[in-house]
């Protein structure tokens, strides 16, 4: 064979075979997963969702409080960590803003700071000067907008103890060296002001500090030993020569002036730590949101699961048999879906909550109408697939109705159904929150609290304590958005017709 120099046979000697497929085959679900990953917003939503679920799982564990810890003083208080409070930071320092404080009220804050050693005033934001006339003389008055550490600002409170409890408190004081009990002050010494335990100095009739010539407070602590409620053998405040009394008699018990912040440490074993602040009931919001979210998520999952099962069975029957069966079952759906959900929830609550409990009756309300959407979806899929040749072939081979329905036709609908489940969950959470917000369903005996309850408590005090509504709202908003984005992403990923269209 002569070689033509102009032409060379490239594959002259080599054997030509098909290359083995080197890439991995991609399954239906793998393909859907790939499509899902292409959708950046859904992936982000999935991560946020994971974070929120982790939050719901671990927040109640991480919080030093349980849902049953309800503080009676620290209600609707801002976010606070002891470290930030001690540093005097605005951030996480239990900060509340007080407007137009005059010099007299600044003295009051100073009094608390001097007695307890914890200065409630974080900083002055604004200082206003107003010139005015007083008794014919020009005077300049100052007023301030200040940021106050609400936890320190409580200062002292009156509290009644049994003798035993009082002894225990003294022992604790001796062990830790933290001053809880402060010398008693008789109301007669402070111009008969009975409702202000933070006055320990001479005051004028208006309750303003009456200073001595050098501008210092004049202590008016009680010294009459006859009034003393119980023996006191523990820490004494500086400046006490042993004559101050620390309690008075109060019908078989003793009444004391105690520093609430330190008393809190005695009672709970640690300083207050409220990352999100406290709710109206004095719960730790961090823990309460976690508990509420736990319930919401689990409940929604349960509802979605039950609705899926009922809906699939119902829809399969409808779709597979068609005709009169379909017609009859459809009419039942029409009637059930016509009942407003509020009415269903209310009626179930009124009828069943006494007999089977709040949560089961609430569950029944969701199940009664919730499956209709799933049934419609299943029915549609059945109509699409039941006429296909492979079904006919299976029938010709003698497959039973049940086998045709659940082994041959239903798997086609699996993707759509599973993804619809991801969209049922946020809807259930939203409705559940709405109903518990409205107070139609009271779940707090079961879970301690729910997001809806927290929201309605927060709404009642939104102006004085915005954080009590801010955190539950943010949590719910994020949860809803991420769940919906995630669900939509899943739906698009499993739906081949929307694939590759860009968005």
């Amino acid at each position, binding site marked *: 064979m002569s070689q033509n120099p102009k032409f060379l046979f490239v594959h002259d000697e080599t054997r030509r075979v098909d290359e083995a497929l080197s890439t991995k085959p991609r399954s239906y679900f793998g393909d859907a997963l790939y499509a899902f990953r292409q959708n950046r*917003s859904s992936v982000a939503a999935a991560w946020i969702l994971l974070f929120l679920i982790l939050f719901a799982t671990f927040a109640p564990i991480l919080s030093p409080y349980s849902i049953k810890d309800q503080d009676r003083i620290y209600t609707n208080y801002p976010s606070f960590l002891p470290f930030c409070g001690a540093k005097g930071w605005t951030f996480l320092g239990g900060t509340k803003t007080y407007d137009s404080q005059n010099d007299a009220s600044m003295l009051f804050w100073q009094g608390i700071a001097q007695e307890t050693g914890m200065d409630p005033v974080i900083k002055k934001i604004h200082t206003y000067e107003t010139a005015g006339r007083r008794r014919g003389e020009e005077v300049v008055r100052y007023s301030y907008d200040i940021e106050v550490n609400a936890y320190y600002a409580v200062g002292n409170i009156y509290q009644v103890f049994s003798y035993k409890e009082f002894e225990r408190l003294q022992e604790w004081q001796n062990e830790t060296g933290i001053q809880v009990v402060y010398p008693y002050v008789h109301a007669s010494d402070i111009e008969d002001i009975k409702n202000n335990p933070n006055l320990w100095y001479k005051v004028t009739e208006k309750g303003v500090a009456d200073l001595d010539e050098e501008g210092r407070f004049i202590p008016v602590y009680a010294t009459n030993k006859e009034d003393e409620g119980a023996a006191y053998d523990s820490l004494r405040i500086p400046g006490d020569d042993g004559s101050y009394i620390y309690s008075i008699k109060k019908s078989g018990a003793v009444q004391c002036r105690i520093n609430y912040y330190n008393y809190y440490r005695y009672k709970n074993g640690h300083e207050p730590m409220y990352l999100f602040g406290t709710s109206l009931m004095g719960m730790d919001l961090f823990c309460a949101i976690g508990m509420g979210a736990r319930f919401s998520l689990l409940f929604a999952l349960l509802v979605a699961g039950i609705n899926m099962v009922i809906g699939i069975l119902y829809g399969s029957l409808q779709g597979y048999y068609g005709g009169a069966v379909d017609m009859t079952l459809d009419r039942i759906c*029409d*009637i059930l879906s*016509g*009942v*407003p959900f*509020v*009415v269903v929830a*209310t*009626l179930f609550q*009124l*009828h069943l909550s006494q007999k089977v409990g709040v949560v089961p009756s609430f569950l029944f309300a969701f199940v009664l109408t919730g499956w209709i959407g799933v049934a419609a979806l299943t029915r549609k899929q059945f109509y699409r697939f039941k006429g296909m040749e492979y079904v006919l072939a299976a029938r010709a081979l003698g497959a039973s109705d049940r086998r045709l329905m659940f082994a041959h036709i239903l798997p086609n609908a699996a993707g759509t159904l599973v993804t619809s489940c991801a969209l049922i969950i*946020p809807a259930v959470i*939203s409705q559940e*929150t*709405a109903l518990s*917000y*409205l*107070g*139609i369903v009271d779940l707090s005996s079961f879970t301690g609290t729910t997001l809806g309850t927290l*929201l309605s408590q*927060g*709404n009642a005090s*939104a*102006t004085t304590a*915005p954080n009590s*509504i801010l955190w539950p*709202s943010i949590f*719910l*908003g994020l949860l*809803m*958005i991420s*769940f*919906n*984005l995630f669900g*939509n992403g899943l739906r698009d990923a499993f739906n081949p017709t929307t694939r590759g269209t*860009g*968005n």
Partner: protein
Amino acid sequence: MIKYSLQRIFYMILVFFIIMLMCFVLIRMLPLPVLPPDDPHTQVVEMRREAMGYNEPYLVQFGLFIRNIFTHFDWGVSDKLYFGQEVWEVFKEKLPATVIVNLYSILLSIPIGIFLGMLAALKKNTWVDYTISTLVMAVISVPSFVYAFLIQYFFCFRLQWFPFVMESGTDYFSPEMLRSLVPPVLALSFGVIAGFTRTTRAELAEVLDSDYMLLAKIKGLTVFQATIRHGLRNCFVVIVPQIFGEFLGILSGSLIIEKIFAIPGVGALTLNAINGPDYNVFMLSTAFYTAIGLAAGLVVDLSYGFLDPRIRMGAKE
């Protein structure tokens, strides 16, 4: 078409009555609230109960109930909340507030929603579209009461532009009243606007790619003219039913908004009836919400047929 409509209406009424029967029996099965012993109205209410047939079988009771409604529109007497008053009279007083709030909200939402949707469709796959679509997604997901809180906190408390709750009184068009209605209307509108935007965007984006739009532009129409005259008109086949549906839908969905902004409407009445409990009032509001829900579905279905001959159901003959 008329035959089909009549069929649907008849069917709707049938479903309505079945639902009413179910709710009626379930409500009558509940223990009755105890009447105050020495109130002069107690006797009246007891006599009314006797006349309503509280001691008869449930079906007879329902028959009496229906007969009273049909003969002199008598829905019974409130026995707790508005002691001794006709339920329908109470309800009639509450209805305008709800309708007004919803009407304003829908009137506000239609132009904004359609405008945003058009903008997104015309600027498809640009940052404008992405921003609008993302916002729509977020707004649709978050329950409306969360906006209500935000609006109440920022506009009513921080900025003090609007009062916290709705003005009392029935003068629905006075300036103070209109100002106090802004927050609830806004809170209700967010979701509706987002709904309209999404529908308009989806429909218009599809329509804009069609051949007749190309032809319209070739004829020399500007993009704006072509969109308004040809594009949007075709979108209305979907948007108009949605407007009806949303109007009727939020009429029943504003329960929470009514509570937050203290609107003296049907929602508040229903909640009070549930917490009362005042079963006659509850029965009436159940009937109201059921009717609204069914009517919304019906109107949406029928308006499709009226607007677009291509999807007319009864046109087979």
